[in-house]
């Protein structure tokens, strides 16, 4: 992709992609790094770009980049062995942390505690408002799988926030 094309993508989608990466990774600095790396890849023509770039395709690229980012040894060390453990500080259980937090912070932590496939589905649908068909395309799965992932993700969030 040439510079003006990447610039147009940046102008059209940057905020949405950055927001998704930030919610998915739970960290602004990591999200910046991931989204920036995508633009650099596009500029350096290291990514295979379809003829018409859709929002669903871009979300898939960001999701894959987020997953790859988590795969590096340094990130794994930072993340810990379980996603839900991120919510605890070693002395308190994740549930206690949620109880003690403001509801908004609790919800953010609960979202971070979701398994990553459920987290991606829930963020894209309930926060970004992506259609089921686009979600299926972005996540490379069927519409039924999108619905069942939403079932699980939403139920976990409701349960954690109820405690």
């Amino acid at each position, binding site marked *: 992709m040439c510079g003006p094309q990447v610039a147009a993508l940046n102008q059209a989608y940057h905020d949405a992609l*950055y927001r998704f990466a930030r919610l998915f990774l739970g960290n602004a600095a990591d999200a910046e790094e991931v989204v920036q790396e995508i633009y650099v890849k596009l*500029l350096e023509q290291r990514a295979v770009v379809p003829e018409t770039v859709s929002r669903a395709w871009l979300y898939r690229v960001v999701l894959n980049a987020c997953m790859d980012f988590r795969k590096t040894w340094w990130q794994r060390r930072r993340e810990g062995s379980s996603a839900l453990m991120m919510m605890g500080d070693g002395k308190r259980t994740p549930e206690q942390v949620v109880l003690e937090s403001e509801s*908004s912070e609790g919800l953010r932590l609960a979202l971070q505690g979701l398994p990553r496939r459920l987290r991606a589905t*829930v963020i894209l649908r309930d926060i970004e408002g992506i259609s089921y068909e686009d979600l299926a395309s972005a996540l490379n799965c069927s519409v039924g799988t999108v619905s069942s992932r939403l*079932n699980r993700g939403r139920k976990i969030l409701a349960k954690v926030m109820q405690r």
Partner: protein
Amino acid sequence: MKRWMDHFVLRRWLSAYADMQLHGTLLERVRSHIASCGFCQRDLVGIKNGRDLLANWETVHVAQRRVDWGWMAAAAAVIIAVLAIRWSPVPTVHAMDVNFYAAQFRSAGYCSYPCTSLVETSFEAVRASAPLALQYPARMPSSIVLSRVIRYRTQQYEGVGLLFAGTGKRFWIFEQPERLSVATNSLPTGPILICGRECTRIECAQVRLLNWTKDGLSFVVATDLEKNDVEAIVASLRRLKS
């Protein structure tokens, strides 16, 4: 036995059912199964609760540093593109993305393309320096009050959004210049008559969206109110006197 078979086949569709994404036979099958299945009824409540938690959540605002050579190159490309557009004899197309209105309905408070800025303001401030000849509803269902006012801009135009809310119901009315049209993003649309006005209904998940133009303005309504309430409000729209 059949009921249990149905249960395992149909329970995966509960979220799609809650989001009104099912149609035809599948919708009927899921609906009738839920009516007779206590597990799915409980699950559906949990699913809706989880969804509503996120829908009402104030999401993070985007603000970040963009400094390095890659971004410098991208910025230079943007400047070149903008200059090229300015000098180009081809007029630029301006249409607000329908996701912008749906996002505001879900309390997102952020811009979607091609909105370039969004600010919270007060009714008094907007009235004092109205960017356009605003219209205001003289009638509103009891207990629904004006609770939020925004001004949003594209490169050329400016619009105003008024949120009326109460008792769990929301009625957003966005007013913008007629020349700033609404891009429906391939969502299904259809005609609908509201108080004798020919409006466009946009089939968007989780929110009813209506669009019409009148008196040089383009109106977009995003609401979960019933049609008769919407009609009463739209019928009472009056030009605001400064």
